[in-house]
Structures are given as C-alpha cells and as structure tokens.
C-alpha cells in the first residue's frame, strides 16, 4: 500500500488549542450590541386546542421588546423531508393545536433573560384539552384521538423492503423463532444546550449563529418558514458542543431568533436550559420490533420477516428516515436470502423522536443481534460461529438496496473472539460473570435525497496561494467529531503539504460553496473528503502542468506532490516548491488566482449509502445477583472502517460510542408519566460517569473502500449499536435472564431471575 505522510497518523485536532484555552466560542458565548434574550412558552398539556392567547400583559412588561405567537408568523410548515411535502408537519410556533408537553406556543424577547422569563408567566393561554395517547398501541387502536388531521390512524409514514419469498422460506425452515423486542427513548445529552443568535444586516439579510449539525438545512428551512429567499439567510455554525443527531433540523428557537430580530431590528439570542433539553428535546425513537427468522439445521439463515412500530412522538422530525433505516439495518450483517420489512411511524403525544447516533441501527440491531444469540443457544451453535456462517462479505448485494463494496466483518468476528478469549470464557467464568457478543454495520452517509437539494451533496473550494498555503472552504460541519482536522489531513496528504499549510473556513453558508447536507449518517469524511479530493486534483493538474513546462519534462513522467514540493517522480531535482508552482500557474494565467472546486453526489449506489462499515464487540459483565446491578468489566471491539485516516480520532469515536451504548443498555432512560418527562436533570438522567466506564481494547480491521477518500469509510457512529446486545447476552450468560426490553435495569434482572 502507498505510504502516507499524514493519513494514518495520530494528528491532534487543529482546534485543540482554542478549546483547551477556553477561546473557542460556542453560540451562547456570543454577545452583540443591543442583543435581546429570547424565551419560549411551551404547552403544559400533551394534546389540546388553543382557544385563545392573550399576550397583552407580557407585552406591557417593561423591558419586553417582542412577543409572538403562531398567529404572528407566516404559518409555514417545515420538516426535513422536503421531497415529500406532506411529511412536513411542524409549525415554528403552534397554530391551533399543541401536541406534546413542551410544544412551543409563544416566544418573548426582552432586554434580559429574567424579564423574558417573567413575561412568559404573563402570557395567558386558554386550552381545550384533548384526549392524548402515549404509546404506539394506543395510538393505532380504533378510535384513538387523531394527532394530525392528515394521518387519521396516527401512522404518518410507512416503509417496506421486500425480496425473496419470505413466507416459503420460513415455512420450509428447520428452525424458526419469533420474538418481540422493545427499545426505549434516550437523550443525545450533548453537553452544549441548543443556542441561536440572529441578526439582521443592513441589507435585510439574516445572519444566524446557531448550534447546528446542518447549516444548509437550517438555511433553506429558515428561509422557507420566514418567506424569504435562501440567499437572504446566512447560517454560521460556530464551535458546537456535540450533536449526535439532535441538532440536524430547523428548530423553533432558530426561527424565533430570526423572526424577532427582523421585527425588532435588534439581535436576538435563545439558549435552552438543560431541563428544556431533557424534558422537551428530541430523543431516540422507541420501537416495538417483531422479528421472525428461519434457519437451516446447519444454522444458515433462510429469511427474516420484520415489523417495526416506531414511536415518533408528536411530529415526524427525522422519523421517515428512521423508518426506512431500521428496515435496512435489519437486513444487514448477514445474508438473508429472503427478507420482508414493514416499518410504521406512529404519532404519539410525546416529545418528537429524531435522529440520534446510529439512527435506526441501535434499535434494529438490538433485536437482530439478540435474536442471533437466542437462535445460537437453541441451535447449539456458538454465537460467533453462527455469525461467521452467515456473515456478509465484500461483493454481497441486498437486492435493490445496496452492494457491499468492502467488508471486514468475518475478520472482525475472528479478531474479537481472539482478543476476548471468547472460547474459554464462554465455557467457564466464575459465578455472576458472563460474556456476550453483538455486531454492527453502518452507513457512510445517505444517498437518498429526501431533502431535495438542488446542489451537490457535498462541495469544496480550494484556493492555492503562492506562499505555499491553501485555503479550504467547505460547508461540512465540525460538531466535535473532528471533521475539520480530518478534512485538512486529506487535503494536506493529497497536495503533499503539512497540516499547518492548510487554512479552513467551514460551515458558513455565505462563504462556502453550495452545499453540504451536514454532519449526520457518518457522511462527512466520505462525501466532503471526496469533494475535496476532486478539487485538489484540479489544482494538482495545473501545478503539474507548470512543473512539466518549466522543466520540459517528457509527458510520460508522473508528477509527485510531497514535502511541500511538486516534482517529477524519480527526479526530485526537477521540481519546485508548492508555492513556486502556484506562482507559476498564476503568472501563466495573467494573475488569475488558482482556485478549484470539487463536489460529490453519490450516484448509482443503491438506496442507502455508498459504503458500509462492519464490526463486532464482546462485553464481559459481572452481575450482583442480589441487587441486580451490572458492572461491565471489559469491552473488546474489532471494526472495519476502511483506511484509518486518524487512529486517535477513530479511537475517540469508539470510546464515546461505548459510553453512549452502555447508557442505552443499562442506565439511561426517560421516566415518563403519560406525556410528562419526570427526569429532567443529569442527576436523574443517568448517563455514565468516568468511574462507570469499563476498560476496553480495540483493533481496526483495515480494508480499502473503493468509494471512500483514500479508502476510508464510516467510523464511530455505528459502534453505538453492538454494545446493548452484547451486554444483554453477557447478562444472560451470567444469570440466565434474557432481556428483550431495554434498558436492562437491576429490577428487570431481579424479576427475571425470580428474586423480586
């Protein structure tokens, strides 16, 4: 394999210094002259008609500069699925009806936060309460209250996947099992609460600094809901304190900040509280998953029939994508000759579920992987053996959906078995200990254009300078995952430059080329990386021409870019520095700056993604059989993410996934009383602390993904999925109790083992 100078190295983040010194500015850190502070009034009822709103007392409070309700707005619905406008079901502020506790009803902008909050108390809303539903079964039952008029049965969207003859395959199978799994809602729990600051420029354009993963989506939808043109809105993403899927839509406070900035002529900032985030924020979809699988006597899968009800909460949000993806992930990892999926997205009167790390995979793979473990037990086959028998390999196809262009799954399974001492531990562990396995596959960005963008999925502009630096402009959004660093690495490597030679401007819709769909679905490295490579190659072509002309090179020579120089391969003296080459080209072009653009839009890549990652994880647990407390002793992971561009960054993603996966498996959940979220602090929303984390070991199985930049594909998002099924299996191995209903709480373990 080609030797890389920068790719594959532990390059520290280039924003590390700004973050370590506190200089990095997040949205709430901005303060503008004359700035007002915004606050939202939210519905206290899960389902109600708004009869009347009186804001006169709030408006009269000294210091209050603006109070708005849905009636004051253009009343334009929005939603990320622009391709299907019928799915756009949300108003920036409630019009006529509220559909969950926390639905935004009015907004106040005042000279300080305390006054804004006081004004909220003065808004009088008369509601007519309506019957509400809080789970999918009640929502789809006959006679259930209708949450959105256009979906009388409360099913907002369904998705199907179907290939092979499932009924025949299951009828003829040697062994068939059917299980129902339920999975719960969890919070993204990004540390930075959502914040937005909007200002109107002198020429009427809106500039909004906002904590988002998707500047382009916010730009388009904000323009649409304000009745403005896209280019009248400039979205700037400052440093963002994590997103994990929770910041990838237009949100009410973005609209309100912009709308009220327009109305008042003053900058307006909204920052949510942690309680708002936990009580009313987006969350991972709870699902009810019924899965039926069949095997031959030798343990070869013959088919799967999967039906999933997604609890979408009050609005579609990213539910339509989740509905398709959980079906897609149900077909991944193994070769299913026949497969049938029906996913139905159900409205309930709860905070809307949205995209969250893994996006359909943690739920679907908890069911699929738990079921593989159950089947292994009954078939008398080791769970890892059973997986190897059925594992996907490079070149496999999911009919009509995807082709697997690189796959290190079997290698991952073998490696994780070796690392963990699987065989001996599976045979014998001391009492209370258990070991279990779970696997994942994930996407490297989506190919389905639900946002209906008229631009490339990702684009890059590169400006080369005679001083030897280049400036990369991209709308790709670093939300903490480190994309600015990795994209710089890709560019530096391609141009033979050093990291410090690259300048970057990212995620500012007025400055960077149209467009980039944002940071979600693990799309950035592959898509932005590819667009950068395309732009870089255009630059290289011109520079190579300059060197060739200058040194009168035979046309058969390759031109190399390395160590800040451009030169004839094998003849390093026939060349010049990168900056000299740029100057040369610029001279040849009579002063025209050397600029190139590149873009990437996946085409001919099926319905899902250009590339899939794979991996396997083993968990060892110790269960206190009297208290039901589970201590995860160690996690072993082997995963295939194609070429590893930055090992330290990949490890960081893996470590973070384990924290999120561990919380999903054991301790994180929303305690609900009907539509009301009861645990709205980090004291009672129990995400793992530093002392809760198990030690881990991991190995990257390097493959080369032909579609990826320098062979790279997804790393770190999919890894959030295998942890829960691995822990569930380990708990079974330790106690004999099989949990099909996340999270695996001490109480469930005690009840399951007859101790409570």
């Amino acid at each position, binding site marked *: 394999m080609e030797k890389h100078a920068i790719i594959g190295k532990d390059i520290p983040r280039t924003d590390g210094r700004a973050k370590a010194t506190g200089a990095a500015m997040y949205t709430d850190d901005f303060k503008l002259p004359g700035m007002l502070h915004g606050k939202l009034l939210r519905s206290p009822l899960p389902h109600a008609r708004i009869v009347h709103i009186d804001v006169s007392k709030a408006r009269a409070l000294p210091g209050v500069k603006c109070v708005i309700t849905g009636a004051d707005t253009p009343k334009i619905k929005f939603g990320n699925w622009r391709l299907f406008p019928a799915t756009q079901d949300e108003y920036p502020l409630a019009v006529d009806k509220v559909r969950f506790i926390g639905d935004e009803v009015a907004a106040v902008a005042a000279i300080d936060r*305390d006054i804004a909050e006081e004004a909220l108390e003065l808004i009088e809303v008369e509601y007519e309460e309506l019957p509400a539903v809080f789970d999918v079964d009640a929502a789809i039952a006959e006679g259930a209250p209708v949450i959105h008029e256009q979906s009388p049965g409360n099913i907002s969207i369904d998705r199907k996947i179907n290939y092979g003859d499932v009924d025949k395959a299951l009828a003829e199978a040697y062994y068939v099992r059917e299980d129902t799994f339920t999975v719960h809602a969890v919070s993204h729990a990004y540390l930075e609460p959502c914040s937005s600051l909007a200002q109107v420029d002198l020429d009427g354009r809106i500039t909004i600094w906002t904590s988002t993963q998707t500047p382009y989506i916010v730009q388009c939808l904000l323009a649409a809901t304000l009745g403005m043109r896209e280019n009248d809105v400039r979205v700037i993403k400052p440093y963002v304190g994590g997103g994990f899927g929770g910041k990838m839509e237009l949100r009410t406070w973005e609209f309100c900040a912009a709308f009220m900035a327009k109305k008042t002529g003053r900058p307006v900032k909204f920052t949510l509280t942690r309680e708002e985030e936990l009580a009313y924020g987006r969350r991972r979809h709870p699902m009810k998953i019924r899965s039926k699988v069949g095997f031959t006597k030798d343990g070869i899968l013959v088919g799967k029939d999967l039906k999933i009800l997604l609890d979408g909460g009050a609005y579609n949000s990213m539910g339509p994508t989740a509905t398709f993806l959980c079906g897609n992930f149900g077909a991944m990892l193994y070769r299913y000759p026949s497969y049938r999926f029906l996913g139905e997205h159900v409205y309930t009167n709860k905070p809307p579920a949205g995209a969250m790390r893994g996006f359909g995979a943690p739920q679907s793979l908890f069911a699929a992987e738990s079921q593989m473990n159950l089947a292994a037990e009954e078939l008398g086959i080791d769970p890892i053996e059973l997986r190897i028998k059925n594992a996907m390999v490079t070149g496999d196809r999911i009919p009509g959906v995807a082709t697997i262009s690189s796959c290190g799954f079997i290698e991952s399974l073998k490696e994780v078995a070796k690392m963990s001492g699987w065989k001996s531990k599976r045979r014998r562990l001391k009492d209370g200990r258990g070991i279990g396995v779970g696997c994942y596959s994930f996407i490297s960005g989506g190919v389905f254009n639900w946002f209906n963008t008229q631009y490339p999925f990702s684009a890059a502009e590169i400006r080369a300078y005679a001083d030897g630096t280049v400036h990369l402009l991209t709308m790709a959004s670093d939300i903490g995952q480190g994309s600015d660093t990795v994209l710089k690495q890709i560019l530096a490597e391609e141009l033979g430059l050093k990291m410090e030679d690259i300048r970057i401007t990212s995620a500012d819709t007025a400055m960077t080329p149209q467009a980039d769909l944002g940071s979600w679905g693990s799309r950035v490295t592959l898509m932005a990386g590819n667009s950068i490579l395309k732009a870089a190659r255009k630059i290289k072509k011109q520079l190579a021409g300059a060197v060739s002309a200058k040194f009168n090179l035979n046309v058969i020579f390759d031109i190399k870019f390395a160590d800040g120089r451009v030169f004839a391969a094998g003849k390093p003296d026939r060349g010049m520095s990168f900056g000299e080459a740029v100057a040369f080209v610029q001279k040849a072009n009579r002063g025209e700056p050397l600029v190139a653009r590149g873009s990437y839009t996946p085409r001919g890549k099926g319905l899902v993604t250009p590339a899939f990652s794979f991996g396997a994880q083993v968990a060892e647990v110790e269960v206190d059989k009297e208290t039901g407390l589970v201590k995860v002793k160690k996690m072993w992971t082997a995963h295939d993410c194609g070429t590893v561009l930055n090992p330290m960054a990949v490890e960081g993603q893996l470590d973070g996934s384990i924290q999120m996966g561990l919380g999903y498996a054991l301790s994180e959940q929303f305690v609900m009383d009907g539509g009301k979220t009861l645990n709205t602090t980090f004291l009672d929303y*129990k995400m793992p*602390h530093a*002392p809760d984390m198990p030690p881990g070991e991991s190995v990257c199985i390097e493959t080369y993904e032909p579609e990826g930049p320098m062979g790279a594909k997804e790393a770190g998002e999919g890894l959030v999925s295998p942890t829960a099924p691995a822990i569930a299996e380990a708990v079974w191995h330790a106690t004999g109790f099989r949990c099909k209903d996340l999270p695996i*709480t*001490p*109480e469930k373990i005690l009840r399951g083992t007859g101790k409570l």
Partner: protein
Amino acid sequence: MPIPRFDYFAPRTVDEAVNLLAQAGPDGRVMAGGTDLLVKIRFRVIHPAAIVGLKKIEGLERISFSRNKGLTIGATALLADVAASSPVRRYYPGVAQAADQTANVQVRNMGTVVGNLCNASPSADNAPTLLALGARVRITGPGGQRSMSLEDFFRGPGMTALEPGEIVTAVTVPLPPPRSATAYLSLSARAKLDCSAVGVGVMLALDDRDRCKDLRIFVGACAPIPVRAGGAEQVLIGEKLTDSTVEQAALEAAKATQPIDDVRASADYRYKMATVLTIRAIMDARKRALRKKN
C-alpha cells in the same frame, strides 16, 4: 412562577444570623454550601426573599475532636474537609466515608455535612451513619441554644424539627463504643456518585464473646425520613451474628420502611434492597469490628 430574586446577608456571628432570620420570617432561608438550596430556588421549588449565608461566621467551619466530647462538625464544615479530617478518618471512618461518597468533588468543595442533614432529603448520604452513631444537632435560635438527637430532628422530606429562626450550628457525634464499627451502603442505577435509591447505615458493637452488644440500623430513601429499624436491632442484640440471624434481622429492617415508586426505583425494589443492604452492612461492620481486640 416568579423569578428567584432574594436579598442576601452574610452575618459575622450566629446571633446576628438568628436575628436576620427572625426578621426575614418564613421567607428567610439559611444557606451553608448552597448546593441544594440554589438548585431548589432555580427549579422554583422554594421562593425565599432573604438568604442568610453562614460562611462568614468564624468558627462554624471547624471540625473538632476530643475523647471526652467526641466529634463536633460545624455548620459550614465542607464535606471535603470532613472526608479529609484525620480525627474523623481515624475515629469515625464511616462518617468520613459517607462525606466522601456524597455527590462529586465540586459539591463536596461547596456543600456541608450539616447542610446535607438540614436539607432533610430522605436519601441524604450523610444521615444514616450519623444516626447510627447517635449523633446530635446543636441549635441556636431566638430562644437560645438547645440540642437534640438527630433521630428526632428529621420530620419529613425537607422538614426538620427546627423552629422558625433557628439555625443548626453543629452536629456532634459521641465516641463510638469499643469494638464497634459502622458501615454505610447505598445503591443507584449508576455505580457511583449518584443520588441513592436505597441506603443503609449501621453501627455495630460486639461484646468480648463476639456477640452483638449494641446495634443501630437506619435505612435511607425508603420512607419520608431515614428510618430506624428497631425491630431488626432487637433480633440481634445479645445474639451471635450468623447468616440466619442477620438475615432474619434484615427482613425485619425492610418492614420498618415505607418505600414509594419514583424516578429512581420502584417500591418493591427498595423494599427488597433494604434487606439485602442491611445484611451486607451488618456483615461489613461485623468484619471490621472483629478486627478490634478488647
């Protein structure tokens, strides 16, 4: 609900504090570390008009010990300082341990043991051990000074025996009996540093034949206040501590509780855990008491 706006006073003496509190009436609140109080204000659980901060009162931060008088922990002695104090660690390891297990570093650097008690949360981590050790609270109020046993101090969630205008100035703990040990065990969904779903504190003293000479058991987070498991104590006092006698006592301990379902655990689970933790706490205390020779 109105925005939390209050006046703040930083008296230099206890008497001054008592006067300020008396003037403020029912809208006045005493603040030691503020880690509970400010959260309650922020969440609009309480709406004080005046806060009387105790941190400027000289001497209240003191932790003192003598063999005759036992341990005195002043009202503003920080959890971190109690956890690190050498006499506390030497003579009252359970008290140090409970302080050290309370919340996290930041809270231990702001919060106080006395504040944890006065907040009167049923799950207060410092209560069961101090109750088991027979601690008392020293109180100053408009009517002068008094003291009472900690057992009588708790009246309900967030409620204490304090009369209007009264301030707890210290908690005192007698010297534990010879051949005694304490243990405090708590449980929650997260392994550590969390608000407990169940907590059990015991103080066990052995006689020279290793029988239970004295025993006090308190269960936290399973009733409106930390409850004493007197029935369980009676099962074991004067008896040998065997697996079966301890289990029998622990079943009695659970009977003393009145657990509820809440966001942290179900009533059934709490009831069951009261038994499990009582067994473990007694056995733990027994092991340590046995190490002490006469």
